[in-house]
């Protein structure tokens, strides 16, 4: 046997290694369990290196690249005197400005402004695999980042933590097909659920076709999902059209517009108002803590979602008819079934709520089945 092993040493090792991995696989597949330990090792080994790499990139490529672009823009500006171009360039300039110098500032002021407790993190890698929509960040459970926590930027929501390791965490992006969260539009205050599509668009689902949603309207998190605090931007409507069952609304996620580098992990979420459209009964920012990440004791988002079912009372023709006859009774002073006046169901209708159409008032001709 020894000879055999010796002679086929390579083969034996191969068999053993593959067997070992197969057993590993089998354990995971059968028990539907993850072997966390190995992942922890890998992420732990990777994170410091990735941090260095990201640091180098941000300080050289990032700044240099943007600076280079700025220079280019300025020289072009000098040569070209066309107003339109100038405007365009100014716009570009401003964008760049915001993207570079102001970014850190914006982040800092956002953190100050936002009542939620957050922690900054850097994105250090994308998940491997062709269509994976996950990223790795350089903060993990030692910094308090736990599974289930929302990840945001001042521009919009980014995703949620799906696995946390000691020094890093995996974040599922909002563009992942399995991602979803509750949203509400700023103008019409319609509640829906946004879902990733695997591309760079988001789909808002469960909004009735009758609802009015305009292109350009911005959707914010609604807090309905009990993951994201209410009031964080998600993205503006790019497309809104009638769908089969529900309206098809596509959003462009705002968080990804400038490329993702720094993000904030929300450790403790606090609901906020949807900007611009403060409801009449504004009681200030709602300070209702969200569920702590491993999801225990979830306080209902107070969030008096009053327009839950947008006024759409379910009724059948029977209800309409009941209403009609009731009003006939009221108009004629008839108490149905009681002695006294006999109702006349074909009486010409008074001005409001006519039971039957009348020729003299063509504009008010209601559609009463003529049968």
């Amino acid at each position, binding site marked *: 046997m020894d000879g055999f092993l010796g002679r086929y*040493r390579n083969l034996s090792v191969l068999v053993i290694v593959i067997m070992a991995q197969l057993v590993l*696989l089998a354990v995971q597949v059968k028990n539907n369990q993850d072997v966390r330990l190995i*992942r922890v090792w890998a992420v732990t080994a*990777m994170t410091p*290196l*990735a941090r260095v790499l990201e640091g180098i990139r941000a300080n050289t490529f990032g700044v240099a690249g943007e600076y280079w672009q700025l220079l280019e823009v300025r020289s072009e500006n000098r040569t070209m005197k066309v107003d339109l171009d100038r405007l365009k360039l100014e716009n570009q300039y401003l964008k760049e400005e915001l993207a570079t110098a102001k970014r850190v500032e914006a982040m800092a002021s956002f953190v100050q402004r936002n009542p939620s407790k957050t922690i900054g993190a850097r994105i250090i890698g*994308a998940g491997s695999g062709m269509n994976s929509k996950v990223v790795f960040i350089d903060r993990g459970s030692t910094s308090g980042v736990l599974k289930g926590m929302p990840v945001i930027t001042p521009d919009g929501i980014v995703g949620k933590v799906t696995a946390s390791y000691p020094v890093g965490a995996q974040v599922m992006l909002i563009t992942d097909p399995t991602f979803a969260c509750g949203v509400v539009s700023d103008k019409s205050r319609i509640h829906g659920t946004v879902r990733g599509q695997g591309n760079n668009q988001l789909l808002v689902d469960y909004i009735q076709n009758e609802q009015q949603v305009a292109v350009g309207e911005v959707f914010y998190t609604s807090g309905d999902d009990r993951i994201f605090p209410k009031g964080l931007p998600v993205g503006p409507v790019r497309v809104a059209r009638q769908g089969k069952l529900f309206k098809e609304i596509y959003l462009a996620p705002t968080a990804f517009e400038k490329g993702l580098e720094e993000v904030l992990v929300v450790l403790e979420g606090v609901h906020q108002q949807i900007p611009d459209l403060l409801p009449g009964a504004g009681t200030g920012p709602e300070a209702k803590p969200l569920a702590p990440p491993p999801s225990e004791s979830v306080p209902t988002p107070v969030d008096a979602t009053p327009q839950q079912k947008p006024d759409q009372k379910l009724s059948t023709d029977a209800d309409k008819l009941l209403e009609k006859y009731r009003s006939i009774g009221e108009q004629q002073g008839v108490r149905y079934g009681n002695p006294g006046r006999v109702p006349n169901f074909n009486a010409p209708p008074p001005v409001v709520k006519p039971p039957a159409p009348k020729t003299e008032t063509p504009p008010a001709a209601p559609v009463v089945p003529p049968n």
Partner: protein
Amino acid sequence: MPLPEYSEANFVEGRRRKSSSSSFRPIVFFLVPLFSVLLDIFLPRFIESARTLEFPLLITIYFSLMKRQPIAGIAIGATIGLMQDSLSQQPLGMFGIVKTLVGYFAASVSLRFDLNNPALRFMLCNFFFVFHQFFYWVMVRALLGQATNINGMDELVRSLLNSAVALPLFLALDKLREDES
């Protein structure tokens, strides 16, 4: 023809060839694979098309070819594969097994070829890339019961692309080699 199969000459030949295996500093052995896996997750953040590149696979092929020891190939393949698995959402072992096989076969095959020939490198890379993709696909189907589509044409293009990237990459890695030959 009727020479004994396991002649002394044979072993000597084997030894001689083995001794021609390249050696690297341990730090290179540690850092380069790590870096390759890192690139695999780092680059796609900025360049979506970088997902086409399989740095971990190229590194596995390179080291296995250069070490010319199947056991080393197995070790490299398994390590890189498992690391890749750790950072993906797949169960651990999928890339691990495939890359272990790639490492083993690359190392075995290396005994027979002159590995400084760019054309040969290109062809080997091509072969192993296709082998890797195909075997991975088989594993996903057979072991996980998932149905993923494989596009032959796409994979071929990817394979050529990876092989093309492999040539300068291997040349660069050659610089880290500490060969006595």
